[in-house]
């Protein structure tokens, strides 16, 4: 690693790190990305690939809308379609009570000027999701949401960034960060160093540790959301389906396999850098899938896995400038739904770094919200 040639050092080569690097390179910054493992090994490469605005925290909606615009022309950004397709997202209500709650949500969104979530009744639900269980009474549908291939996407961002001159260093961990006049000196566990005036913390589930190196506090919880996948079945469902009252994310791929997840978590084995499964919780997931899709009765699980993800106490990310260190920016803590925000997060960080202001308001995501806890 050469010592001084970089404008920005990005810690973490997940989707958010790659996106930040790409957008910074588009602003002609010289960027180094460092990842302790390899780009896409963790959350960004193993997630469910849901590109979803449905049910999002309202504070994230402006950002998610802007991100969807980028998704819709993703090939222009990264020269790769990322396997992105738009087949809608449906949240199923199993009871009238649940449907009422969904209706309230739609009304609330309307007052804020958002119209993408629409209520569907029993028969419309059946039209869009023919195999859904008889007892379901309706749902909430977003036609413009979709899904993409996570590993392919992260690689596409990474490769585009590399084509624009970004340097990736993988398999080395950032273990020290110190300020030397106006530049940050980053030390890695291979006893190398690199310096740059700006650092972007995209360390995902390990971002709290990077904050620690900087003497800043962020309550990042490491969680291990689980997914399982079935052997191929005949095509029966197009949109990604979730449930109003239970944890579920349910999607059939083009090759016929069905992905079942939604956020039930296994265990993080920190020492071994692995996420472990919890089959008794996967069983709950299996029951939900069967309850909502009787057609799954004959299906077989061929593989299951878990990824290590960062979760914040309020389930929204940390984005923007550090509260304590000049020249440090954060982009982490995407709390199980950060894949959709990948394309935009990098643009926002590049704006913050290069211009000092951002095209979407990110004040709700400021790390300052945890300052009280730090004391």
């Amino acid at each position: 690693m050469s010592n001084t040639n970089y404008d920005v050092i990005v810690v973490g080569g997940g989707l958010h790190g790659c996106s930040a690097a790409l957008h910074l390179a588009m602003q002609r910054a010289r960027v180094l990305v460092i990842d302790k493992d390899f780009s896409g090994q963790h959350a960004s490469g193993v997630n469910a690939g849901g590109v979803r605005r449905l049910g999002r925290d309202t504070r994230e909606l402006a950002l998610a809308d802007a991100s969807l615009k980028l998704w819709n022309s993703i090939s222009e950004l990264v020269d790769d379609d990322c396997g992105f397709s738009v087949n809608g997202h449906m949240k199923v209500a199993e009871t009238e009570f649940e449907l009422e709650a969904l209706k309230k949500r739609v009304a609330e969104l309307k007052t804020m000027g958002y119209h993408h979530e629409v209520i569907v009744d029993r028969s419309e639900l059946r039209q869009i999701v023919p195999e859904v269980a008889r007892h379901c009474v309706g749902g909430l549908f977003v036609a413009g949401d979709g899904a993409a291939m996570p590993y392919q996407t992260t690689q596409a961002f990474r490769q585009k960034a590399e084509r624009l001159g970004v340097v990736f260093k993988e398999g080395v961990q950032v273990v020290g960060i110190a300020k030397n006049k106006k530049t940050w000196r980053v030390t890695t566990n291979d006893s190398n160093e690199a310096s740059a005036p700006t650092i972007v913390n995209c360390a995902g589930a390990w971002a709290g540790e990077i904050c620690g190196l900087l003497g800043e506090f962020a309550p990042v919880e490491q969680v291990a959301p689980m997914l399982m996948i079935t052997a191929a079945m005949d095509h029966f469902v197009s949109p990604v389906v979730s449930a109003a009252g239970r944890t579920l994310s349910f999607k059939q791929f083009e090759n016929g396999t069905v992905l079942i997840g939604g956020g039930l978590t296994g265990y993080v084995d920190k020492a071994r850098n692995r996420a472990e499964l919890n089959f008794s919780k996967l069983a709950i997931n299996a029951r939900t899938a069967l309850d909502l899709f009787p057609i799954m009765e004959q299906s077989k699980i061929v593989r299951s896995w878990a990824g290590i993800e960062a979760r914040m106490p309020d389930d929204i990310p940390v984005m923007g400038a550090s509260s304590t260190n000049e020249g440090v920016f954060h982009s982490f803590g995407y709390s199980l739904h950060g894949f959709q925000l990948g394309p935009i997060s990098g643009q926002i960080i590049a704006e913050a770094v290069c211009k000092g202001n951002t095209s979407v308001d990110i004040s709700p995501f400021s790390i300052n919200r945890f300052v009280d806890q730090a004391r």
Partner: protein
Amino acid sequence: MSINSVDVLVVGAGPAGLSAAIELSKRGATTMLIDEQAQPGGQIYRGVELCGESDRKLFGYGYVRGRKIIEDFRQSPIDYKTRTVLVSIESNHVADIFENGVLKRVQAGAIIIATGAYERPVPIKGWTLPGVMTIGAAQIAAKQASVIPSGRTVIVGNGALLWLLAWQYRNFGASIDAIIDLGGRKQISKLLRDFWGFAASSYFLDGAKYYALSRVSTRVITARDQVEILGDTRVEGVVVMQKNGKYQKFAADTVLLHDGILPNTNLLGAIGCEMLWSLSQCSWRPKVNIWQETSVSGVFAAGDNAGIDGAIAAEYSGRIAALDALRQLQILTSQERDTLAQPWIRQRSRARWGRNFIDAYFSPSNTVKTASDATIVCRCEAITHESVSAHIQQEPRRLAHLKSMTRCGMGPCQGRMCSPSVAALTAQISDVHPYQVGPPSHRFPVSPLPLAALAKFDVGLSQDAGKLHE
């Protein structure tokens, strides 16, 4: 649901697992042994219990030995579950097993994995055609149901098992039209160095006999270049091509393939056991200590899944693992364990004599290197040689990357059938050592599990766990 509690859970009823279970139960440990097959014996002693004296010659020297172990096993107080697979292991040796359509939880004090070996895939053109099977599958058919293919049979490949099968077929009165030997050029100097170990080993007399008899009694063609299986909808023949453009054709109704065997590490990988690359056997194996314990404490690997050492070494490694498990359970003291283990540790090394010679003599031919573009590499996902090669050229050296980009290894077999080929191809194309490609990543369940069975799995977690956290 009640959780079953045992001192030791043993997975696999081959020589290693049986020996371990016998030893454990003999010394008072409550022992559960599970195996997906209906009969004990594993691969090598498959069906031994069922076959009569007259089938003896089919099994060769192993018959008596296998029968003895199984008799001991049948007399031991072991909770033996047939047609049962291990689905997952969580921390603290909590195991979920799938028995008779039901998923159950077992709390074990230690776990011994003895899942044996499987055959290295032979991805030559036409290997997925009906009428093609592996030597192992042919051997199972012979042992279990005395089924021998009718019509013309051609064997293609390399490895000790190939010659053993040829000999077994001969004893059965079956004819083999040709053996196409894919074994590469032998490195004489290396072979000589290891020969004395082999000559002194238990393999020497029997092994040399099978080999020599099969070689002289069958037409053997040495093929160093490309071999392809012919046929549109099923096997019609085999063609051996030479570099100078000449080729030889053999008509066949059945083609049997083999290229040696590999440790079956899927379970160990999914548990997260550290893996090592074996230079002599060209395969991954778990890192184990002298007691066969893996990097995960209380999880042991015994028998061929810890490295191909054969049935006799497997017995001793199973017993040695049992002894340390007994020590961990405080049934034995360290001194007692050491005293009991001493002769077995010696026997285990003795049983490994000759292994280096066999490994070197039959070093894998890795046919994938000469396969043509349209040859299927990953059967589950129907991914071709061409498509894997294209991705390797983009980013070599990482199996995980290739898995995500090509889907090789994402199907029901979880890469058992393609990862050795993908690793060999990567090593060849990007001129790296296969170990640099990294071990394949395995995930539970290592064999497909019905969703409905998982849905019925209930270990008393509250339903609330399924509710949204919001």
